[in-house]
Structure formats: structure tokens, C-alpha cells
């Protein structure tokens, strides 16, 4: 009897570890080329008591540098952002963040108000897969799924990624369990430049009203922050495209006013920040590069300190040493990209899978 139960337990153990191994091997690693999918999960590894947490899409994670904020203002911050992060995904990340720590302020970028329905399965996965299991993750999945998706594919990612068996490469083995850090407290760095020319005017829309669903989650986010005594700051990043309509802007101004929130449209502050669209973007005005992000951080840091009294925490030994390591990686990455740019004309390594 003992022998038999032992055999059963052993079989189950082998079966489960086989599944675990296959899942780990087959899931995408996002360690080169498309790094965005790896960013959400990095959050959990670092010390948490951030004073500011930025939550939103690429208009945050490519435009603000927490390293700069630390070095110049002593602001301990993190960006919880991912590609095309939809508002409900941001909401659930905020919910989780507030459960895990208690930031003084949450900064939310309002561009995603333009999406009222689930959009793209691939982006969903990049945002959600990295989250740890909690009611927030369940909520995020349920709010995000497109018609072709199934909840169970999030529970068992192998059901989703099994067909990658024919695409496996060295990265999948190298990063089977341990992954590199790809971001700097959520910041995605690019040093290259591609001037913004001929940025198109937005085409007229038939309806400028943001959707009910988007507002529903914005309301939830507002309430969440109020209930937990967290300052919610709405921002619109200064990047030129996707086009931000005046009608949209007005809705956010009104919303902030009626809910007693701060809304900062950085598009109106380009001169104050000193943005130069010939030098401060790497893709013609969609996203800022490092130089642009540091300019924006410089301006925003001042606002955070002066208007929201975010404390300067430099001098706390633990934080100093943590930020030192991030800063070292930051400098190394800057150097690597600059070198690549000189040698190959691109920030990517020649053998990088794009």
C-alpha cells in the first residue's frame, strides 16, 4: 500500500514538473527584440515602498526615467506599464499596487481612454502574463479577453504558447527560469534619434466621446485612490502621435475638475520642458528617447516635489544601494546602445532577435 501511494505521488510529481518545465520553456521570454512583455513581472523583485507609481502605456514607460527622478530629486518611483496597456489593465495594476504598498501618488496616462473594448490578444498577454496571481489578475483577464481567448489559457499558458515548439531559440533555454532585467524601474531605454517630421494632424472623428467602459474604469481608479488616500495624477504625455484631440483633452479637463484631480497635459508644456523634436525622440515623435525622457523627468520631478510634496529619500541606506545597482545598469545600457549605434547604426546587437 505504502509502495503504491509512493508510486502515485511520484508519478504526479513527475507529471507536474514536466508540465511546469514545458510551460517555462515554451512561454515567450521577451529578452531581446520585444522587451515589453517582460516588464510587468519585474516589479515584484524590487523593494516596494515607492512614493510615486506611474501606471499606463508606452507614453509613460518610454517617457519618464525613474533613475533620473531618483538621482535628481530623490523620488523613489516605479513605472508599471506595458505595451498598449488598456485602462482596465491599468486599473487592476493600480489595485494590486495599492494592496502591495502604499504610494503617495499614482500617475495615470490618459491616452488609453480612447479604447473602450478589448483590443489585441498579443498585447493582453504582454500585460497580464507577468502579473502574479491575485483577484486583480483575474479581474484584468476577464476585462481584457478578446473573443478568441479563453481564461484557462491564462491559467495554463502552455495552452496558448504550445505551438512555439517550432520557434524555440537559444533565448528560450538561456532564460528558462532566470530572466534578465530589461527595464530600469519600468523604464524602457532608447538612446537613438529619429526626428519628428510631418507629424500628421488627427483625422476628424465622428464621435469624440470616450466610451462608457473607459469611464467606468477611470471612475473606479479615482475611487480606489480616494478610498486609499492616494493622490491620483492624470497626465497626457508630450509625444505627438497618436494624435490627442482637443475634444478628448476637454473631457479630461472636465473630469479632473469635477473629481478634484490634477490633470497635466504635457503637450502644452513642450517649451517649458525644452523638448527638441529633432533630438528627443527615437521614432519620429511617437516616443521620447533617453534625452527626451530625462527632460520630461526633470520637469515632472519638480512638479512632484513642489506641488505634491514627494519626499527626497536619498540617504536611506537601503534605497541608496538599490538605486546604485539600477543606476549602474542604466549607465551600462546607455553605453551599450551608444556603442552599437556608432558601430552598426542601430541600438540593437547584431545577433539580437528582433
Amino acid at each position, binding site marked *: 500500500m505504502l509502495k503504491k501511494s509512493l*508510486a502515485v505521488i511520484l*508519478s504526479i510529481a*513527475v*507529471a507536474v514538473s*514536466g*508540465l511546469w518545465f*514545458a510551460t517555462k520553456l*515554451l512561454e*515567450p521570454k521577451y529578452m531581446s*527584440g*520585444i522587451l*515589453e*512583455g517582460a516588464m510587468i513581472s519585474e516589479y515584484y523583485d524590487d523593494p516596494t515602498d515607492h512614493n510615486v507609481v506611474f501606471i499606463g*502605456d*508606452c507614453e509613460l514607460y518610454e517617457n519618464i526615467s525613474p533613475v533620473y527622478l531618483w538621482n535628481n530629486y530623490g523620488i523613489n518611483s516605479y513605472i508599471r506599464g506595458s*505595451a*498598449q496597456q488598456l485602462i482596465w489593465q491599468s486599473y487592476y495594476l493600480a489595485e494590486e499596487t495599492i494592496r502591495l504598498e502604499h504610494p503617495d501618488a499614482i500617475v495615470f496616462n490618459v491616452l488609453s481612454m480612447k479604447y473602450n473594448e478589448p483590443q489585441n*490578444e*498579443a*498585447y493582453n498577454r*504582454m500585460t497580464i502574463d507577468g502579473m502574479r496571481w491575485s483577484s486583480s489578475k483575474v479581474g484584468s483577464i476577464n476585462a481584457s479577453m478578446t473573443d*478568441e*481567448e*479563453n481564461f*484557462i*489559457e491564462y491559467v495554463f499558458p*502552455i*495552452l*496558448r*504558447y*504550445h*505551438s*512555439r*515548439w*517550432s*520557434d524555440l531559440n537559444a533565448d528560450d533555454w538561456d532564460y528558462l527560469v532566470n530572466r534578465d532585467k530589461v527595464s530600469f524601474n519600468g523604464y524602457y531605454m532608447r538612446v537613438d534619434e529619429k526626428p519628428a517630421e510631418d507629424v500628421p494632424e488627427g483625422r476628424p472623428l465622428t464621435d469624440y466621446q470616450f466610451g462608457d467602459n473607459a469611464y467606468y474604469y477611470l471612475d473606479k481608479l479615482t475611487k480606489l485612490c480616494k478610498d486609499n488616500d492616494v493622490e491620483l495624477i492624470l497626465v497626457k504625455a508630450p509625444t505627438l*502621435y*497618436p494624435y490627442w484631440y482637443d475634444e478628448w483633452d476637454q473631457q479630461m479637463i472636465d473630469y479632473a475638475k469635477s473629481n478634484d484631480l490634477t490633470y497635466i497635459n504635457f503637450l502644452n508644456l513642450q517649451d517649458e520642458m525644452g523638448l527638441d523634436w529633432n533630438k528627443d525622440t527615437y521614432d519620429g515623435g*511617437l516616443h521620447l528617447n533617453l534625452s527626451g525622457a530625462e527632460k520630461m523627468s526633470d520637469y515632472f520631478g519638480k512638479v512632484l516635489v513642489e506641488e505634491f510634496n514627494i519626499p527626497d529619500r536619498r540617504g536611506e541606506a537601503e534605497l541608496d544601494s538599490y538605486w546604485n545597482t539600477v543606476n549602474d545598469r542604466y549607465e551600462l545600457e546607455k553605453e551599450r546602445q551608444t556603442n552599437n549605434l556608432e558601430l552598426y547604426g542601430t541600438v540593437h546587437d547584431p545577433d539580437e*532577435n528582433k
Partner: protein
Amino acid sequence: MLFTSYEFIGFLLAVFVIYYLLPGKMQWPFLLLASYAFYFIADPRYLIFIAVTSVTTFFAAKAISDKKIAFDTWFKGHKKEYEKEERKALKAAEKSKEKKIFLACLLLNLGILAVTKYTNFTIANINSIMSTFGSENGISFVDLIIPMGISFYTFQSMGYLIDVYNGKHEAQDNLFKYGLFVSFFPQLVQGPISRYSDLSKTLYEEHRFNWRTVSFGLERILWGFFKKLVIADRILVAVQAIIADTDTYNGFYAFAGAMFYALELYADFTGGIDITIGVAETMGIKVTENFIRPYFSKNIKEYWNRWHITMGTWFTDYIFYPISASQFMMKLSKKSRAKLGNNLGKRVPVYLSSFIVWFTTGIWHGASWNFIVWGLGNFVVIMISQELDPFYRWFHSKVKVAGTFGWKLFQVVRTVLIMSSLRMFDCYRDVPLTFKMFGSIFTDFSPSQLKVEAFTGMGLTVYDYAVVFVGMLILVGVSLVQRSGSVREKIATLSAPIRFVIWYGLFMATLIFGAYGIGYSASQFIYNQF
């Protein structure tokens, strides 16, 4: 709810757990409930159709059966009072009363089947005939629903009705038990077409959890999923590419398409039946086998005894025999013998019955000329092979190849090629196109078509073909082993670690190499705006 969907697996799990938690007496009623739920999830409107068929056949069969029993009891007590001729007349009178009920029920149900399935086909044909006479305005098509599995459950019910009418067995007394026989969910979608005398043996019994039965059932389900997901659903991509673009894919590609389709259909159909039988088995219920390694058949007749067996026997028992044993055929037989001589004359009724059977088989498969021509194609091939019989006898008396491996292999290959050619009607849009594509195999073949690039251009990579190929080898291997008895029995005699490796390996292979879900590829993540 497709067999290969998360919903179905979830549904199965729920049914399975509840089934064994319930007291034995509640098991079959629960299965009825589950079957109707299964149907309800597919489309609530379907329920009316299956309920009508169940209720009408139940009461008709019950009435016939009750009358029969009452008559027999009465007759036993009173037959001495009558002369031989009178007794005959009494019996005939009884039979004709039963026959009225029988025919009414039969025609009603076949009528439902015909209307739902063939109305639009009929309209299309009328329209095309009218247009040849220059008529512009055709009849517009009717928007009818075709209830899932209607061909299968109608045939199953009619088989039951005919058997009761013929006195093979008594009618079921319980409407709900009968309802379960008609709607039993694992076989609702694609058969097998069970006989009441078979299925009723285990369907209503109480079943206690038995590890051996359950594990055997699960193994069978897993094997079915392997066939469907790893082989069928993958090669299907190439089949569809080939038949969709006949300008590019003719000649050798048409041949390759026919072979791919042979593999796809076999893996898909037998895999589905494996799942059906396996699901029933996990609940202790025995469903009739529907396939016995058909691609190992040596001739077409044998093939049809081994492929979709329950359909073949249904047509034999309920169409071929009644027609060929009818008074009309007996008379025809006499006449044709008198006119055409004994040898030729005796074949007329057989072939005529066979012709009717294959015509109906064709149209049963689908409301289109493709299927009708396919059915008649089978008839022609069977007739030819029947007529060639003397030739083969002569051949074998001269050349001693019978029984050799080479000859058997030749027979098997020949059967597969003939059946695959006929099945091309199943693939292409219409009959002329099928003939054109079949012809192109011989006329448009060129060695330049044997390019790897052409095949990887059909939506499958070299890796996919490799998986299909290995899957096919496993399929053939299992079939070879199966010739000497159940593969699962054989595996059960192996040591535990080896059993574990086999079943876990099959599970993981299905999980990873199965063609299901949203195909993931990194190329999807072309990073544009965000």
C-alpha cells in the same frame, strides 16, 4: 460544442464527476439531462426536433409492441379454433394494423429529416432545371436549421422502430430511457449509429467507479484527441489550401491533396469515435466499434465492412435487405432470369438494390450532387470488382501470388487509392471540378511540382509536415499492433514506469504538438504604434 474545445472538456469533467457521485438509480436520468443540456448549449431550437423524434418513435414502437404481445397471447389461446388459412388471414390483418402505425411514424421522421436537410438542395435543382428552360425567377431558398446530428439520431431511432416492428425485440417501456438512447450525448454529433439491442445492455445499468474501466476510457479519449489535434487538424490546413486554389494545385498536388485528405478524414473521424467510445467507457457504457483498421482492407467491400461500420450495417439491414428481399425484387429476379439467363439475370436485383443503397448513402452524407456521385462511384467500383471476380479466380489459378505479402500490399494500396480518388468528390466544389482535378493527376503531372516550397506554401512548415509524418507512423504502428488484440490491454501488461511514459508522452505530445488555440508566433508582435 466541438469535441476539441475547452467547453467540451469542462462539460465532460462535470458530467463525469456528478455521474459517479450520484446513486446508481439516478445515473441514467442524469445522462439524459446532460445529453439534453449538451444539445441545449448547441442551440435550444434543436431540442424540439430530437424530442419530436424521440416521442413519436417511442409511442409508435410501444403501440406496435403492445399490439404484438396482446395478439400473440390471444393467438396462442385461440389458434386451435381456426383453420390454417384463417390463421394466416388473422396474422396478416394484425400485421397490416401494425404496419399503419409503423409507416406513419417512419414517414413522419424521414420527412423531418428530408425537409430540414434536403429542401434547399431540391430548390436549387428545381431552379437549375427551370433556368435551362429559360425561366428567370427561381424559388428562393428557405432558411431552415439543420439540427445537429439529425442524420444520426433519426437513423438510430428508425433502426429501433424497424426492429420492434420486425419483432426483433420489445419496445422500451420508459419514455425517458428511450429518450436517452436517442440523445446519448457522446454519439450525438457523429455517431456511431447504435442499435438499441446493443446500447441498452449497458446504458441504463448502475455503474460504480472502476479504475480499470475509467482509465481505459481515458486512454481512448486521449488517443482520440491525439489523432484529431496532432494529425487531422494540422494536415487539414494543407488540404484546404489545395482544394481552395485549383489553378495552382492540380496534377500531383491534387493527388497529394487526396492522400492528405485520406489521412485527415481517417484521423478526424476515428479520433472522434475514439473520444465517443472512450467517454462512454469512462461511464461504464459500451458503444459499438465503428472502424476496424479500414485502410488495411484488401477490397472495397471489405473496406465498407471496416469503415463507418454502424452506418454500413444500417444501410444493409434496413435498406439493402428489405429492398432485395421484397416481393417486387423476387418477381424481378424471376423475370430477369427468364429473359437474361440464369447467370446474368440473378445479378439484376442485387445490383438494383445496391444502386439504391449507394444512392441513399450518398445523399445521406450530404445534400449535394457531389455526395450522390460519390455514392454511385462506390456502387460502380463494387460492381466492377464483383464482375472481375471470375477474372481474379482465373488469374490466381495461373499466377501463384495470392497470400504473398507483396500481393496483399498491392491490394491494400489499391483499395486506399480507389477510396481516396472517390473521396475527392467530398473535397471539391462541384462534380465537374472533381473530375477535372482527378484527370489532372494524369495529365498535368510534372516533376517540377515536387518542390518543397510548394508544400510549405500551403500554410504548413516543414516542422508541421514532420509532426504529421511521425503522427502517421504512430498511427500505422498502433494499427499493426492492434491486429493481434487491444493495444490498451497490451500496454496494461507492461510495467508501471513504462505505462506512465507511454501515456504521459502521448498527453504531452497532444498538448504541445496539437494544432489548437491561437497560433502563437513572435512575428505577430510587430511593434508599431505602442
